Structure formats: C-alpha cells, structure tokens
C-alpha cells in the first residue's frame, strides 16, 4: 500500500506499507506488535501546532503522529504496546546558500521525537539525515522497517 506525501495509512499484518522517494520528508511508523497492527505517516514539515490554518494536518510530523495514534487505538491497538520507528529527513541539496530549506528534514525528526516522547511511545530505531533519498517499506507481519537507497542500491533494516 502506497503512502503519499501528507498522507498516513493504517493496516494489519501481513500488509506492507510503502513510501517511495523520501528526500527531506519523514516516514514515521507506529506499531502494536501483539496485534500486528500499525500505520505509516509520510510527512513534509516539522511542527504544525500553532499554525493559523492547518488545512491538511498530516503534512506536519507532530500532528500526523497524533492522528495516526488515535486511529490505531480506535482500531484496537493497545496504547501501551505501541512502538515507533522513523526514517528520512535527508538534505538532498546540501548548500550553505539555501538556509530556507536547509535542515528541514532534521527539524521534522526533532519534532517527531518530541511528540513521541511526550506520548511515551518508545522510538526503537531511526535512520535520519544524510544526503541520500530513501524508499521505506514497513512490514506489518514482522514490524521491520526496511530502508532502501536507490542511488547506491544499498539497504538497511530497522
């Protein structure tokens, strides 16, 4: 199942959730291992709290996590059993000159960590930053988050 930018999806194992071509975007997954129930959010920006017009809250890392959590609990996930992983947040066009976009991915990851810590959801693994694009696959049967790097054809498993 494809998860596009500013979207989140929830599903049960053995489904696989996939977000392709992540640059500065962040993929955050929440998972209830006992029920093989989880979700993936594909976010674009760091904190959305305090924005005047939050049209689609899922584009913000913090608000996406809160919405996905609510959805998962509604589907029968046990709040205390939930764990999180995340990947993405690269700086594709590393440059001293573009302070506007510089480090947005890292800021998104920071915002996600903050909200996870506040919600007391343990963050079991992360692969953040760098300057390579990522495609991530979340296997709901196992809870593994597989990170592919297309440019040099390597991958790692969180």
């Amino acid at each position, binding site marked *: 199942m494809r998860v596009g930018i500013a979207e989140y999806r929830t599903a049960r194992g053995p489904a696989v959730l996939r977000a392709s071509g992540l640059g500065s975007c962040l993929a955050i997954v929440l998972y209830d291992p006992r029920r093989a129930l989880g979700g993936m959010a594909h976010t674009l920006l760091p904190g959305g709290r305090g924005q005047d017009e939050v049209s689609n809250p899922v584009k913000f890392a913090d608000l996406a996590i809160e919405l996905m959590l609510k959805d998962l609990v509604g589907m029968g996930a046990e709040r205390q059993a939930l764990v999180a992983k995340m990947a993405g947040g690269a700086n594709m066009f590393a440059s001293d000159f573009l302070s506007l976009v510089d480090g947005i991915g890292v800021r998104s990851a920071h915002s996600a960590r903050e909200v996870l810590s506040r919600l007391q959801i343990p963050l079991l693994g992360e692969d953040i930053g760098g300057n390579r694009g990522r495609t991530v696959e979340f296997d709901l049967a196992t809870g593994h988050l597989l990170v592919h790097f*297309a440019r040099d054809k390597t991958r790692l498993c969180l």
Partner: protein
Amino acid sequence: MLLDQMPDVQRDALKEVSNIGVGHAATALSKMIGRRIELFVPRVLVTPLADVPACLGGAETLMAGIFLRILGDARGSIMLLFPQASASRLCGILTGCEQELLENQVAVSSLKEVGNILASAYLNALGDLIGKKLLPSVPCFAYDMAGALVDTLLVEVGRKSDLALMVETEFGGEIDSDTSIRGHFFLIPDPETYEAFFSVATGD
C-alpha cells in the same frame, strides 16, 4: 485565490510566460552545446502534494536535479530534471567525455552551470514580462530519486498550501535519435507571491 478554481486565462498566461522563458533558456543551452533544442507544449499542473512525484515520471526514477531559488520581487523555485542518460550526454558534450555523475566534480559543476545559465535566461524573460526583478540563487545539484529531489520544492509550497502549482516545459535536442537530450524545466512559485506571477494575465 483558490488554485483549483484558477481561471483558464491565468493558466494560459502562465503557459505563455513560461514558454517564452524556456524559449530564452533553450536558446542559451543551444548556443552552449551547439545543438538545436526543441520545446514541447508547457503544462500547468495544479495537484495535491501527494501526486507531485507521479507528475515527474515516478517517485523512484533516478534523475539529475538542479535546484535554484528565485530571489527578488517574487519568490519561488526552479527545478531542472534530466534523466540519467541525458545528464551523462550533456556532461559529455560540455566536458569532452561522458562522466559518472556522482564521481566527477567537473561533471557536477558543468551541470550546475547549465542550471545557472538556463535559470538566468528564464528569469530575465519572465521578469521583463511581469515587470519584476527576479534573480536566481546559486544552483544546487543532486542525483537521486525524483521523489526525493522534489521534496525540497514542496517544503516551501506545503507551508501555505495543500496544492502545488507547477509550470512544466519539456525540452530536447535530437529527440528522435539515440543521442537525444531531454530535460524538464519546472517553475514552482511560492504561494505568497502567486499574484506577482499572475499579474501578466490581469495586466496589473
């Protein structure tokens, strides 16, 4: 103004403006590499953020991207995307030998310079048309999945909007041959300065 209700007259004006801009850019490229460059009909795309990578030929397609910010009286981004083979050929023409994109600083610098020259030609023409001073930032280069490259564009757009407005023009040289060079030129205005880019349509 709501983007999904953009009147046809503004769409047409944007296409025309971009066509003229890319025309100037193509002439500059043509002089640089000594090939005739043709332009395809421009497209004005108004799409949800999630659909942008698909508009660029798929999120996972490897592309060479040159990214510049537009500075001055109106703001936005310019992205030039070249498929891998075209980027290598272009480097070959500019530097004298076909290069592995990532390994070679000369190849990367030559592609950045292409971006700089094309963006400058485009922005000069566009600025004259809309009566604004537009300057390109220093170009940045990356070679990676198209989806990962466009995230950078969407960050600015996404702050204010759930829809992305992009004006795309495809261009190419010797497009029917094995040595064709094809590229895509994208103008992505920042939502705060849409009005400036549209002023050409309303005559303000």
